[in-house]
């Protein structure tokens, strides 16, 4: 028995795209992106521990256009991964695991993540007047 040529799961290239599948892979992608966010969180904490000079450098990097884009990506990834993660936890206890309900909960998660991301971003800026 050879295991050398077996295809890897999941087989992304051979299926017609539909909502649950797109949301599943987006859950992974946002998860990987949040790994980058975790690195930024630690870098930020280390900069605070290192003192005002290091903090100023990290703050300037995060405040740059690219830094803000990455942070916005983190915000969307966070709210999406949070919403869809809670959806997964409900599935884990056996709730809402049929097709009509996964469609409804999927749409709810999409609306939730868009509304909370935009709301959060506007609110975070509103208090600062940047």
């Amino acid at each position, binding site marked *: *028995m050879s*295991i050398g040529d077996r295809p*890897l*799961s*999941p087989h992304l290239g051979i299926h017609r795209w539909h909502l649950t599948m797109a949301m599943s892979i987006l859950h*992974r992608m946002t*998860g*990987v992106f*949040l*790994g980058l966010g*975790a*690195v930024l*969180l*630690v870098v930020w*904490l*280390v900069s*605070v*521990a*290192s*003192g*005002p000079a290091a*903090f*100023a450098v990290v*703050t300037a990097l995060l*405040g740059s256009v690219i830094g803000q884009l990455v942070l916005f990506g983190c*915000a969307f990834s*966070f709210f999406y991964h*949070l919403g869809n*993660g*809670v959806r*997964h*936890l409900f599935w*884990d206890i056996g709730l809402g695991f049929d097709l009509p309900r996964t469609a409804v909960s999927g749409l709810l998660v999409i609306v939730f993540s868009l509304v909370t991301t935009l709301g*959060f971003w506007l*609110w*975070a800026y509103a*208090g*600062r007047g940047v």
Partner: protein
Amino acid sequence: MSLKSPLGKVLGSGSAREGAGHWWAQRLTALAMVPLTLWFAFSLAGLHGLGNFGDVHAWIVEPLTGILLILLLLSLLYHSSLGLQVVVEDYVRGWLSVATLIALRFIHIVLAVAGIYSVVRISVGVYT
């Protein structure tokens, strides 16, 4: 009837006795992070001087902030380590897979130590 795969029988692999451990830890850390991440996100947004060293420092110095930050770092990095491990196991093969898995595990431990050390150091007020 045995559920062992033919390959497993040939290799003589027994049960690792932790089949559900990975899955369960992923769910527990997810559950813990629902309140922890929401607290963190809304605290950050509510911090008026997010670019101001003194304001950020004063916020982390508070005992409750330090405790919650360390809990967040532990669950976040454990969750991230477990999640990225599964992604690599699904898409990367051969020696590159093993090398990536080892590197990822090391990186997560380094990040956890660096993050927790920083919070503790800020909390006890040692900075130059």
